[in-house]
């Protein structure tokens, strides 16, 4: 009864606020409380590749450029200035010059200059050893030839080739400007930025606290007095805590579509968004080890997969189906449905594909009585394991008897490196929805994240070609073709493209999420609390 009343009260207050919101200006004050899913490996965004670090610490920093806060889709056209006031390409599009904002100060009081920009990208592109423990996005910056400090307020990036996507990568949440004078070790534990929020504390497995940067360069911002993340590993506990009103929102993309439905049925006023997390499940097939050195078996394996069933089971049919690039309408570069149906293994009639798969296997001497026995390795994490369990169930249809081999996280990459696996189930995220990021990070011969060591020099030429193309439509067509080749080659067959839910109370205002990435909108300088 009291719960009903409370809900009613909340609902009516929210309705009131909805109307009031139009009339009232943004409100100053309040601490935004967010549930966090796990312990971030460190506070240094440049060293990590997880939303666990990206979301809570993005507010500490600024980029040179960002995606416009209210942009629905993260793309080149949405890039706007941040620490850079403007940018200019040279005529050959091989130099990119940024004018920098004057009077910006780091949280420790030191002034921000062009040297900091050079420092940052010298390190992340691998030109200088910045004492970082790891540098997961080195491949993003393959095109940087040199960075020149023209004067304290002007910096120039010299590129090897024209690259329209360069700005897109600079605009992502994973590309903050780091202070030159702060050592990498400190950035991991007590980051210093120019952003709207200052770092206060990071208690392992407990909480992350940020407070308002009163000297933020953007006048009147941020509105919030601070942001607090509380780490709650158990997802249902986190949801209940959110619903109880102890928190304002949850870490982005962490709720399953099922949970989002549940939350909204209990708290109808809760604002929820389910969107692609730009995370995909894909198969790592060891093509050096028999029998997968035989392209036919790789193909048969690919034909057994019912991507619709993956989507249905893992997300009640919400997950996108596509190739390496995120499928439209959310994704920019993904195949259209029509194109996809022409790709082998993506046909609408799964039974037909499986029939074809069985035929291939029979030719090779396998059958219901002589199943191919193999191990399906995966990380011992529910997301990975669930997908692997489904995979094992699917490949049964083409006479392959898979046995799950869950590996401890500490062992997983070591095994990949040693190529000690037959089939691996892998789940991975990508920071920005862009072919340059996707292809260079995962499919170039020498990338550290190219787990299968798939190496196709001809295709790599095409990677570079598309990267330099200015014409969007033409580039997209090429990307589709590349993606198709990748899937046909079984480089890393993509099984599903995940979506995740984010919920927040209506009192949280000014929050914008993009549809094709969860990593890039957590500056929080426009967000305010209406209560």
């Amino acid at each position, binding site marked *: 009864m009291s719960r009903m009343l409370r809900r009613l009260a909340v609902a009516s207050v929210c309705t009131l606020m909805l109307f009031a919101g139009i009339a009232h200006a943004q409100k100053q004050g309040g601490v935004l409380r967010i549930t966090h899913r796990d312990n971030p490996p460190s506070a240094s965004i440049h060293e990590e590749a997880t939303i666990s670090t990206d979301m809570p610490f993005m507010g500490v920093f600024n980029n040179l450029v960002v995606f416009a806060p209210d942009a629905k889709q993260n793309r080149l056209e949405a890039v706007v200035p941040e620490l850079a006031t403007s940018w200019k390409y040279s005529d050959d599009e091989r130099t990119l010059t940024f004018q920098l904002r004057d009077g910006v100060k780091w949280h420790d009081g030191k002034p921000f200059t062009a040297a900091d920009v050079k420092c940052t990208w010298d390190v992340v592109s691998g030109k200088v050893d910045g004492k970082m423990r790891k540098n997961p996005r080195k491949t993003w910056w393959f095109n940087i030839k040199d960075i020149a400090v023209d004067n304290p307020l002007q910096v120039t990036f010299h590129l090897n080739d024209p690259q329209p996507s360069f700005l897109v990568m600079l605009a992502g949440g994973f590309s903050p400007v780091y202070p030159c004078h702060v050592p990498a070790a400190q950035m991991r534990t007590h980051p210093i930025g120019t952003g709207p929020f200052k770092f206060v504390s990071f208690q392992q497995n407990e909480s992350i606290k940020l407070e308002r940067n009163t000297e933020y360069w953007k006048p009147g911002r941020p509105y919030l007095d601070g942001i607090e993340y509380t780490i709650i590993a158990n*997802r249902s506990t986190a949801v209940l805590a959110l619903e109880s009103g102890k928190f304002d929102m949850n870490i982005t993309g962490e709720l399953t579509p*099922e949970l989002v439905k549940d939350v909204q049925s209990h708290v109808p006023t809760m604002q929820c968004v389910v969107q692609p997390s730009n995370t995909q499940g894909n198969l790592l097939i060891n093509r050096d080890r028999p029998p997968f050195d035989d392209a036919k078996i790789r193909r048969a394996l690919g034909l057994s997969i019912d991507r619709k069933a993956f989507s249905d089971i*893992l997300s009640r049919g919400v997950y996108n189906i596509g190739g390496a690039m995120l499928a439209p309408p959310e994704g920019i570069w993904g195949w259209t449905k029509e194109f996809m149906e022409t790709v082998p293994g993506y046909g609408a009639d799964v039974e037909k594909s499986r029939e074809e798969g069985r035929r291939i296997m029979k030719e090779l001497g396998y059958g219901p009585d002589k199943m191919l026995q193999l191990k399906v390795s995966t990380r011992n994490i529910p997301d990975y394991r669930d997908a*692997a369990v489904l995979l094992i*169930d699917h490949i049964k249809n083409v006479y392959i008897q898979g046995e799950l081999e869950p590996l401890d996280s500490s062992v997983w990459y070591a095994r990949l490196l040693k190529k000690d696996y037959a089939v691996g189930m892998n789940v991975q995220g990508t920071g920005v929805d862009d072919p340059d990021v996707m292809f260079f990070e995962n499919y170039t011969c020498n990338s550290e994240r190219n787990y299968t060591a798939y190496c196709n020099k001809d295709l790599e030429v095409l990677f570079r070609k598309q990267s330099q193309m200015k014409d969007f439509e033409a580039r997209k067509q090429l990307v589709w073709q590349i993606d198709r080749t990748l899937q046909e080659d079984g480089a890393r067959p993509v099984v599903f493209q995940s979506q995740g839910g984010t919920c927040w109370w209506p009192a949280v205002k000014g929050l914008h999420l993009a549809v094709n990435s969860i990593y890039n909108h957590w500056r929080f300088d426009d967000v305010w609390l209406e209560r």
Partner: protein
Amino acid sequence: MSTTTATGPVTHGLMSTVWYNARRYPLGVAGAIIMIVFVLSAIFATWVAPLDPFSTNAKASLAAPGGTYLMGADMMGRDVFSRLIHGARVSLAVAIGATMIGSGVGAAVGLACGYIGGWFDLLVQRVTEVFQALPLLVMALVITASLGPSLRNTIIAIAIPLIPIVSRVIRSNVLSLREMPYVEAAKATGMSEWRVAIIHVLPNTLAPLIVLATAQLGSTILTEASLSFLGLGVPEPYPSWGRMLSESAAEYVRTAPWLVIYPGLAISLVVFGSNLLGDALRDALDPRQRD
């Protein structure tokens, strides 16, 4: 006080002994029945389970209990009931495996300590104290972490902390048995130490060993469940009860509570059964500890 009760039960063979004890310990019988059902369903899981515990089904995802899915289905559309029955294998394997290894090695160490004594006993005592300075779960946690998650390693991880528990009891038992008149008498007749140990002492430590082992059976199942709950126990593809519970706990406490309730119920019931049986066995075999 002079005894007024009559002499022991008149036994006419094994069956009547069983029947007599069954009448005396009805709770023990209940425990035995639970354990028998548990063991049988573990052994004959393939025939008992109505559905394939590994087969996924998009249409049955999170089906509520009832109909085809007696205890509902999990997210993958796998039948919870069938998975529980197959999960009994894991629990049984861990319970029997860890208890046997733990009791076997523990008994051997205990006997050796009681008999060899001296520096050996002293050394083992210190090692035992090291083990006892750490909670069982912490010990098992570190061991599974260091060996990696697998059924075999889980068994080892749970068995190792059992060894000192068992060896201590057996040791003190041996020490007291050595002072027993009939053992002294046997020695007086010129029997060798080892003959005495095997003929007179060993059989007499068997009863406390059985009692102790049965009592540990339940706790090993609980430890396995806890390890699995923390993500360090028996991994997929074996459907372990603890892991079934832990994964559902993260997600379905509210949307699909049957995924949390039934695995927990299965664990509790089996441990309850083994405790009942253990109590009855203790009463029957070890009169000194009788209530």
